[in-house]
């Protein structure tokens, strides 16, 4: 009987080994937006891949074991934080058996801790839905916050790969400069729409509203993660009518029926929006993605403007 145990142990030990020496820094991110930033800063010295696909809802990701395989050789894991990934990331980290990317290690970077969050609830009670208990995590839709995060990401890459520190710094500076110009352009483009009331399915666009002076009147979801009931939808119809909301923003991965239901009864228009780099083909990088977002929103508001 005992030899069964020792045979297995022996088998396990001989299979253990083969760690690959990677010249490139292996970075895994939770979202495609983060992967894009890492790629732009890291250039040829990093290999960045995202766990979620661009059209996937980042709150609801199945902790597939194949994702653990993706993480097992990662040198750095970059996540959004603010509870966006709490439903699935901890089990992926544990399942990857990769001590480098454990919370607290240099290989773990949660960028949400470095931004000023909005929407932090005054009282955390699970009856309020609990997806956003530490503040709204959708800050990547604010280009200014993203620009500020570049140094955070850069510093971490420099720490893990000091040989290419100067290059990372230079690339980040170039990207920041590009963003400066674009932020100015976007602000000008959005200026005529200041004060426009909008409703979205989920509270995905709150940072975006704040940045460009739009007014988020409410969401179709009752609470983050809780789908609307018929009663809530009838209240949403009142909300849309009462605030003269002309456009409903709908994230591509959410159930379309509630938005369609409200649109039909209020005459509001639905604009379907990607929420990540790569969500539509033209959104090939962060700047292109923001362009898509802004152009689509403007196009939908255009006829409403005198």
């Amino acid at each position, binding site marked *: 009987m005992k030899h069964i145990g020792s045979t297995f142990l022996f088998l*396990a030990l001989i299979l253990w080994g083969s760690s690959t020496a990677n010249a490139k820094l292996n970075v895994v991110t939770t979202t495609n937006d983060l992967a894009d930033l890492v790629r732009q800063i890291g250039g040829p010295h990093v290999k960045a891949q995202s766990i979620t696909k661009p059209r996937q809802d980042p709150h609801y990701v199945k902790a597939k074991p194949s994702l653990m395989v993706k993480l097992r050789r990662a040198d750095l894991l970059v996540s959004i934080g603010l509870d966006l990934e709490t439903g699935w990331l901890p089990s992926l980290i544990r399942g990857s058996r990769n001590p480098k990317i454990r919370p607290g290690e240099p290989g773990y970077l949660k960028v949400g801790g470095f931004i000023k969050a909005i929407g932090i609830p005054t009282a955390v009670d699970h009856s309020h839905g609990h997806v956003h208990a530490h503040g709204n995590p959708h800050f990547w839709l604010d280009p200014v916050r993203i620009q500020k995060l570049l140094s955070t990401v850069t510093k971490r890459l420099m720490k893990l790969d000091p040989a290419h520190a100067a290059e990372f710094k230079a690339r980040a500076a170039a990207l920041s400069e590009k963003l400066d110009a674009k932020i100015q352009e976007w602000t000008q483009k959005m200026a005529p729409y200041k004060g426009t009331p909008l409703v979205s399915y989920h509270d995905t666009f709150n940072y975006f509203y704040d940045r460009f002076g739009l007014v988020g009147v409410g969401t179709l979801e009752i609470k983050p993660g809780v789908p609307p009931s018929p009663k809530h939808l009838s209240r949403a119809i009142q909300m849309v009518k009462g605030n003269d909301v002309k456009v409903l923003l709908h994230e591509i991965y959410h159930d379309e029926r509630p938005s369609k239901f409200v649109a039909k009864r209020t005459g509001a228009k639905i604009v379907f929006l990607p929420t990540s780099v790569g969500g539509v083909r033209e959104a090939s990088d962060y700047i292109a993605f923001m362009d898509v977002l802004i152009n689509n929103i403007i196009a939908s508001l255009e006829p409403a403007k005198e």
Partner: protein
Amino acid sequence: MFSVHQLSVRARIVLTILIGICSLPTANAQTRTVQERPNIWNPQISTGIVFLGGYSTADEHDHEGAHGLESGFQLQEIELRVESNVDPFFRGIVSLAGHMHEGVMEVGFEEAFLSTIAIPDLTLRAGKFLLNFGKSNLRHTHARHYLSAPMPTTALTGADHLLGIGVSLDYLMPLPFYTELNLQAVRPGWETGHSEDSDGHAHGGGGDPLDLTYVTHLKTLFDLGDTTTLELGGSYMANQDDHGHLQSVWGVDMTMKWVPLQRARYETIDWTTEYISSHRHGVQGDGLYTSIRRQTAQQWWMQLRGGVLGLTRETDTRRYRGETLLAFAPSERSAVRLQYALETQAHSDTTADEHHDLVHEVFLQFIVSMGTHPAHAY
């Protein structure tokens, strides 16, 4: 005894309280929210309640082996779980669980183990833990896909939950697809969780405490595109019984899971089939079950499972069990599940000739969870 009216009032009170409590991620939860605690010295504490009520037509004489659900109200599980990284090297988990058995609440430490977190690719575990045998044993009562473990599994292993005290080593193999090899060695006998064996106690390994029970489990998973995964598993468990004879159980399982990328919150399908063969107390047995679960909306699941015990036996000595379940999970922390089960059971009475009993069960289950909770397997 109270009247039906009184019962329903009591039930209403209990249900009101249960619904009022906000809550363990449940078997049907889409995702869980584990509040992240930056302080590693601050343990994650979670607690959950699984309440069950219903009726079974099984009479006393049908009580043969651990299967079926008992009529009336019961607390299937009360769990208090504390989990934390101990230091940069270890993680500790202690869970205190209560289960009701024949009207009596049995409370004990269900799991208590430490596991390594600093070794790449390997996790070494020591303490008391669930044995990694078959497809279903790692699921706690609140995370089970149905109200009870698969009938063939329970019947063939002789336990509702297989638990053991010993060591466990799991290894994520360096392959491009997920392959995990888990080896476990625990004290003589596989402990029988909270449901008793047919003879009422743990069996196997009478004498030498070093005659351990060994479990080995290999699990592989392949991505078939972005939406579908195929999981194949095999496990083997062996020890010596009181008389020094080898007793063993092995099983193979296959699971296909479909999760559409853009609609992962709204619809999923998974299909699991498992075959188990056992050789215990000198008796050969086998069984098979297959289960399909369909999530039809963010909060709704429809499920069907059918099992047969005794594939290699004569047709009329086989036992069949079918279950259908409807689940409503208002959030990831609560669920209400309604299950109807039909079971045929062969009796080999010494006097009369063999006949079948038909057992019907209708049960309603409430699951709630509070605090943090560790993740469930995919």
